[in-house]
């Protein structure tokens, strides 16, 4: 079996708002192998977040195809895409996107229940991996932003996905917290072998990756 986890073919995306077409991605061809730590860098508006959302099956491309773990996204319906996302992908967002009404623990437990898993030691393991066991019963509003992002990472890795997609995960954090979070990604990558796909405009953050993809104006400029 190939270790190719993600492959895109002539991926395009054009947004349509009020009859105005805004092309964002143009013929993006790229590959991510299983176990890689890849960073996508580029200036704001270059299309890197859009690329991540398409790869994470949150957005549909206007053209081209994505193959994730051997499955062509073009062949999947909405339910199939949700299943792939549920089983093989974990997301970490710049704004954390935790459910504000439940505790950190329950944020992770909800994700597990959505997957149909029983909530058992896995949640505790994920919390331990991000060093948040003690504050797991607090609601997000009572946690610092660094702690919230750690809960978000625990939620993303609890089901041991094939890939974690992180969109500017340090964008809202101070440098100390940012470093902690990036170390956490490195640790997860090394210890659990989870593929990391990191979107960032920070060179410091990108340097944690094994490989950096540079984007500008909706196109891949260079793969380092």
């Amino acid at each position: 079996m190939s270790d190719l986890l993600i492959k895109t073919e002539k991926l395009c995306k054009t947004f349509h708002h009020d009859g105005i077409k805004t092309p964002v991605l143009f013929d993006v061809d790229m590959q991510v192998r299983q176990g890689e730590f890849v960073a996508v860098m580029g200036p704001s508006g270059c299309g890197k977040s859009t690329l991540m959302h398409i790869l994470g099956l949150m957005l549909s491309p206007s053209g081209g195809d994505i193959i994730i773990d051997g499955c062509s996204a073009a062949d999947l319906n909405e339910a199939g895409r949700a299943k792939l996302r549920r089983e093989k992908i974990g997301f970490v967002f710049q704004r954390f996107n935790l459910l504000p009404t439940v505790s950190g623990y329950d944020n992770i437990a909800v994700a597990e229940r959505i997957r149909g898993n029983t909530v058992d030691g896995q949640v505790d393991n994920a919390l331990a991996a991000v060093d948040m066991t003690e504050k797991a019963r607090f609601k997000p509003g009572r946690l610092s932003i660094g702690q919230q992002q750690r809960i978000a990472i625990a939620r993303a890795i609890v089901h041991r996905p094939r890939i974690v997609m992180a969109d500017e995960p340090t964008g809202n954090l101070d440098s100390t917290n940012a470093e902690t979070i990036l170390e956490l990604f490195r640790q997860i990558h090394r210890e659990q072998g989870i593929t990391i796909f990191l979107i960032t405009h920070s060179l410091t953050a990108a340097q944690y990756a094994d490989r950096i993809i540079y984007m500008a104006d909706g196109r891949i400029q260079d793969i380092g």
Partner: protein
Amino acid sequence: MLKLALANLTHRKIRSALSVLAVAIAITLLLVLVGLSRGTLNEVSNRMQSVQAEIIVRDKHFDLGSMSGGKLWEKEIADIVRIQIDDTPAVEHVMAVFLDRMKLAGLSQNVFGVHPEDFAFFAGSRRLIKGEIFSDVDSPSAALALAEAKSNRKIILDSASTTSEPLNYLPLIIDQRLAAASQLAVGDPVSYGDSPAKIVAVVETGVAGRVFAPINMLRGANGVAAQTAHMFFVKANPSLNTDQLQKLCEQIHSNIRRDATLVANYGQVIAENFRNLTIFMNLVSVIALVICFLFILVTIYTIVLERGKEIAILQSLGASRLRVLGQTVQESLIICSTGTVLGIILTFVVRYLIETLQPLMTIEVRISWILIAVLVGIGGGILSALYPGYIALSHDPVEALSFE
């Protein structure tokens, strides 16, 4: 996921409480409006059916709404009493009723003029709470003569009273609800037109009339001939079955050319007489139902649409559309079922308050309407969550996630 739904609701306590209250008000509105529109008519119908008789005989021109119109004569009682069904005497007793109206508790009330000895048939199992059954004079003319002898004014005298001095008032028996509404008690004087009257007894609620008076004195006061009656109640032979009772009705109609109706069908007859009112009541019920449903729809619609970001988070975690919709429906059902239960409780509170403050008003809360209210509450909860849930799902989740 129920935990998430409960957490979402308890996280926004005031908003959730207001939503529950909104649903409760809608359910209360539905039940009270329907109960009020149907209650009064059904209460009249139930009271009439409480008479210990099986058949009502009335002139075809007699209006059940105003309780006035065509007249009968007591001499026809003989024609009714002699009817035989299958060679068996079919009638045990016939009670004449002469009707008039008087103002009590600020409302025009029907006065049932009955023979004192017939009152037991009207009271049935209901007892006199206080006072005694009135007595009557022999005829209306006797009542008039006595009145004229006593005074220049039109005064009714009760010569048959057990007291040594004739009474110069019209004795009345009123029911408990009217007594409460009018703050009247036994011994209190009231006016019957220009003439004096007095409360002589209070009977338990549920008897056919709210006010009873001696039939001949009432006839005398109205200047009508003896034996005039507006309707008869016929107490049939207890051995008659339903078919034989129906035959008896037909026979009465054939013998004296008056409408004879089974007391059990009185509700149906009254509904036919009040066809326009029935249409109006049905319209009120439907409007209340629609308002209730829209109320719930708007309440839940607002809640679900505010969940855009949460729905997007669930989608990013891989939740299917069905699961997301299930989540919104779950929250909606919690609100609506709580609101429905509260609404039903509130309905009984409102009924108690209205019937205490306005004793003559009746709010009928039937199990069937409670079930409809529950269906509206639960159904409204499901439907009103599905549509906005579907709308929220059709939004771009990436855009929703980017909102603060």
